[in-house]
């Protein structure tokens, strides 16, 4: 069965990627593929990115040549921290339960 657990939330993957510093679209794709093993498509990437920008979680920086980098906002950092904390709690409980079997 295909593992969709990490690929089902491209927004979260992009926030994690940008928490490592500003990146443009292609760099985000490579970064996400590196740390999550997920190959986001260009439509998925920019769909999620536009939503994150609309929600004020990321912001665009001035163009660097033809590429526009994005960075995490303070609100984005807070949102990411909250999501990861929640996931971490679920993962800890899940691992503990799996370990007990």
């Amino acid at each position, binding site marked *: 069965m295909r593992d969709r657990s990490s690929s089902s939330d491209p927004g979260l993957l992009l926030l994690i990627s940008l928490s490592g510093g500003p990146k443009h679209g292609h760099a985000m794709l490579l970064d996400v593929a590196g740390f999550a093993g997920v190959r986001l498509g*260009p439509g998925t990437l920019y769909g999620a990115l536009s939503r994150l920008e609309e929600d004020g979680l990321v912001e665009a920086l001035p163009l660097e040549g033809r590429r526009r980098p994005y960075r995490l906002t303070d609100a984005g950092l807070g949102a990411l921290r909250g999501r990861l904390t929640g996931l971490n709690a679920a993962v800890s409980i899940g691992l503990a339960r799996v370990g007990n079997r």
Partner: protein
Amino acid sequence: MKPILRLYPVAWRRRYGDELSDLIDEMPATPATTIDLLRGAATLHMRALLDRVAPRLLPAGGSPMPTHPLQRHPTATALVAALITTPTMIFVGLSFLAYQLELPGMQTWLQPFMDGLSQVPRIVDLFLLAAPFIAFVIAAVPLMGLRTERVDGELRVTLALRARTLNLIVLAVCVVVGGFLASHLLVEFLFERP
């Protein structure tokens, strides 16, 4: 693949079109990428539609669970539903006793009523048939709640079901009575027409 970009919403394309176009240039043209771009366009159109429609339907912060007046009075709606379906329940119950179980004397006792029923306007038949279904909807409404909220920028619609004993009993009665009557009429229509 670039012609696909024309399918994206105009306003979105003005803002992100060039960046997406540059990114496409850096990627191999594969069926998966094409499908991803098509899906992205469809998602954005859907999102734009929801963004236009949702504010008219929802208060900020999401809707509270019990929104319909019927949902605030589950017991009253269950009693109203029971009242609506009672004539059908009596009709079906007596018919079952007389014609299915063939209790002695029941058919003789019931026949004048059945004859009388065939003389009354068709609307009475229709009411007897529709009543369990109407009652079902009325009793079911307080058990269901649609909650819509935004989570991480995505619109989420959650269906919540409540278990209210009285409503569930009425629902079960409606299903049994309505199902019996409908199946009886169906069999009669299919096999017993002159």
